[in-house]
């Protein structure tokens, strides 16, 4: 790679007072940091909800909370973790890293980017208001008969309006990602030279653009039915609750991939760096992301096998769901092949990436199990599904988020998080999460329903185990907070590229990067992940310049 193309940049000082620095900023890196910080705060809010649920479920007939609060905690745990933790964290990390990786100075639409950020914060505050005014009762899916019956329930209205704001924010953000990646790449950076994290960002941008309109329409229809006498879902006047499920899951299933695709991207970045090998099957990795995104729009009804929809639909949806396991399996084998005979450096980001691989494979397998109609009819709505979903969401997305935090922390701050504390964080998170979510599989097989607050005494031991595991996992996160705190206090500067990575954000930008990212926009002359290969031969021009 060589530096050419001096682009003009006008880095004017802000005419606004200093306290507005973070509020009025249009710098993608600052916007990314605000996203990630707020997401991390909501991670603890969602965690406290989960703690409430787990205490209630510690014994068969615990009286920790009443039924209304319990329903509220279940709804808010799901909503907060999905919409206010994983999604905004990924939006933040993409905002920070993606422009650097493609050699751009900022996003294509910096102000629209800021609007996306503040609409996210607005929507999040609306959702937080439910804790004061009454929590929604219908779960994060808000299935129609539940969400339209009690028209006076203010928590439901808050939930709908909050999610609407978040949805608009996501569409704006998605449009920005896609246009940025298509139009602002550095010279020489062709589509098949993009780092896989950028590919994941592109695919996620598309998923946001295409999936979010469906939830906007669905929630508008719920609102019209709740307050204006329209009929869409209420069976009393000719509506159909199953229509709600179709519309919701047409959004909801791509949403699941919005939550996991950036994790694929992060792991694809980390494994080659710490294996000192090029990624195995680069093109296949990119195409499998595209294929997964495409298929994710065709498999929504696998959430509805037991809903009473036309049974003729179940077979095609089951087959398509199982097909999506193929590109996912391709990715897992390619990650393993990347590590095969590589020189592994087990730093914290790599440890978390390996943790991701292990837990995600478990979640992937249980996903193929629930995709099968005959099995699903028995275990749908049981703790088996809860276990599967948490293995994918926590063991997949959240593990990758931690990997990303440890990996890009030096890029964001110039300091490196403490390795020892990082390992302890991993150990307790890994043990805690498996202790929590593994018993859920057999609880579900034995027939324990999800979303219930008391249960048969035969499930007592496994539930207690899950509660203990949940608290180990939750407290482990305090290690990360402590690590962050002492690292920021010590202020020990690390090298610009502590991991010896070969992607643009490490090789051509300082840590932390300057406001316009690069002194000069680099020209890209090679593929990503060229670890262990001899350096490309110098061009005639370079030889001349360097003598």
């Amino acid at each position, binding site marked *: 790679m060589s530096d050419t193309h001096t*682009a003009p*940049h006008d880095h004017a000082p802000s005419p606004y007072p200093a306290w507005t620095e973070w509020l009025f900023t*249009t710098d993608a890196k600052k916007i990314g940091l605000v996203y990630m910080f707020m997401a991390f705060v909501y991670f603890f809010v969602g965690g406290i909800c989960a703690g409430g649920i787990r205490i209630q479920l510690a014994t068969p007939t615990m009286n920790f909370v009443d039924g209304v609060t319990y329903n509220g905690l279940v709804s808010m745990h799901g909503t907060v973790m999905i919409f206010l933790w994983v999604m905004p964290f990924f939006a933040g990390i993409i905002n920070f890293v993606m422009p650097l990786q493609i050699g751009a100075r900022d996003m294509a639409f910096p102000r629209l980017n800021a609007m996306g950020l503040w609409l996210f914060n*607005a929507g999040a505050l609306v959702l937080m208001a439910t804790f004061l005014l009454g929590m929604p009762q219908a779960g994060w899916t808000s299935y129609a008969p539940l969400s339209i019956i009690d028209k006076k329930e203010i928590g439901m209205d808050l939930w709908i309006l909050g999610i609407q*704001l978040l949805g608009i924010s996501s569409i704006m953000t998605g449009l920005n990602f896609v246009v940025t990646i298509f139009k602002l790449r550095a*010279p020489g950076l062709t589509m098949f030279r993009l780092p896989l994290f950028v590919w994941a960002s592109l695919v996620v941008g598309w998923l946001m653009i295409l999936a979010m309109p469906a939830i906007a329409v669905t929630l508008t229809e719920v609102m019209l039915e709740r307050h*204006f006498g329209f009929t869409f879902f209420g069976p009393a006047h000719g509506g159909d609750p199953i229509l709600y499920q179709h519309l919701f899951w047409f959004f909801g299933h791509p949403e699941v991939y919005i939550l996991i695709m950036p994790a694929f991207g992060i792991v694809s970045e980390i494994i080659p760096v710490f294996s000192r090998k090029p990624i195995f099957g680069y093109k296949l990795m990119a195409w499998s992301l595209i294929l997964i995104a495409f298929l994710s729009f065709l498999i929504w009804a696998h959430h509805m096998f037991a809903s009473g929809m036309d049974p003729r639909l179940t077979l095609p949806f089951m087959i398509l769901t199982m097909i999506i396991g193929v590109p996912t399996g391709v990715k897992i084998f390619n990650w393993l092949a990347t590590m095969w005979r590589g020189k592994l450096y087990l730093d914290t980001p790599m440890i978390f990436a390996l943790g991701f691989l292990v837990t995600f494979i478990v979640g992937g397998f249980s996903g193929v199990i629930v995709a099968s109609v005959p099995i699903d009819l028995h275990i749908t709505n049981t703790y088996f599904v809860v276990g599967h979903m948490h293995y994918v969401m926590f063991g997949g997305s959240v593990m990758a988020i931690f990997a990303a935090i440890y990996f890009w922390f030096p890029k964001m701050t110039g300091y490196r998080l403490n390795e020892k504390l990082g390992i302890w964080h991993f150990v307790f998170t890994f043990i805690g999460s498996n202790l929590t979510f593994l018993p859920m599989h057999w609880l579900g097989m034995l027939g324990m329903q999800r979303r219930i607050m008391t249960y048969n005494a035969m499930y007592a031991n496994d539930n207690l185990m899950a509660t203990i595991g949940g608290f180990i996992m939750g407290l482990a996160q305090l290690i990360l907070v402590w690590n962050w705190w002492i690292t920021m206090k010590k202020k020990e500067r690390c090298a610009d590229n502590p991991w010896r990575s070969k992607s643009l954000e490490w090789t051509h930008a300082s840590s932390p990067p300057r406001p316009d990212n690069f002194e000069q926009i680099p020209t890209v002359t090679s593929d990503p992940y060229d670890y262990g290969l001899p350096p490309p031969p110098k061009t005639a021009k370079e030889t001349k310049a360097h003598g």
Partner: protein
Amino acid sequence: MADSKPNYTRIGHANPWPFTASVALMTGVFGLLFIENKNPVGWMLIVIAAGVFLIAVFSWLTTMIREDVAEASERTVPEFPAIGKWMVSFLVVSEVFLFGALFATYFYLRNHDQIYTQSLLHFYQVDGSVFEIWGLVPLLNTIFLVSSSVTVHFAEEALRHSKTKVFQVLMTITVVLGALFVGGQVFEYWNFSVNEHFTPQTSTFGGSFYTLTTLHGAHVLAGVIVLTSLLVGSFFRALSAKRHIALTVASIYWHFVDVVWIVLVAVIYLRLI
């Protein structure tokens, strides 16, 4: 493709309006909740929020135009990477899914709602005469919208060839046609609800009909506002043959709104599918 283009984006300009607009929207949401609880504070909040939001959007747009005019004088390439055109194309794709979800609702309920089938019969025979939603108003509206799509295209051509007067005349016609469409829509709603007693609450078909046409009408209205501001801007030399990306963006959007209307007529009014 990526080789020849300069890397272009404005760096470092802090801007207060995205933040302000978001706070206004959040205030509006809380206003709605107060109204639902019959609390008069709600209306006050909504009015304040709407005012602040409009100010924010207006200031945001004027900042954009000012920068655009300032930078255009330094430009060597007439269209720096036309990111606006890409943006609006992807937005249109998103809107296809937005309308698609509503059409899906319509088709699903048409096939699943037993009461709907009866109510349909009921609707078409009010007082022994057949009530037909297709009529003169939607026909005129179709003519208005399709011809406005033609005029906006030739307005763009005129601007490209620096024929400012022709451009302004054609744009005025476009805006008037768009406004006539919105007027026709309002008249139709009044006619249906008052004369024919056909309201959103009447049946599932009523719900689908009104949500689809209102969403489309809102898009037309938004288009009229955007086209009007471009027309006004042209009197202040905000548009020129070298600087017409805003018009290109608006006209792509306008053609899309036109296409949606044709699908709407075919599916909902004429029941061709």
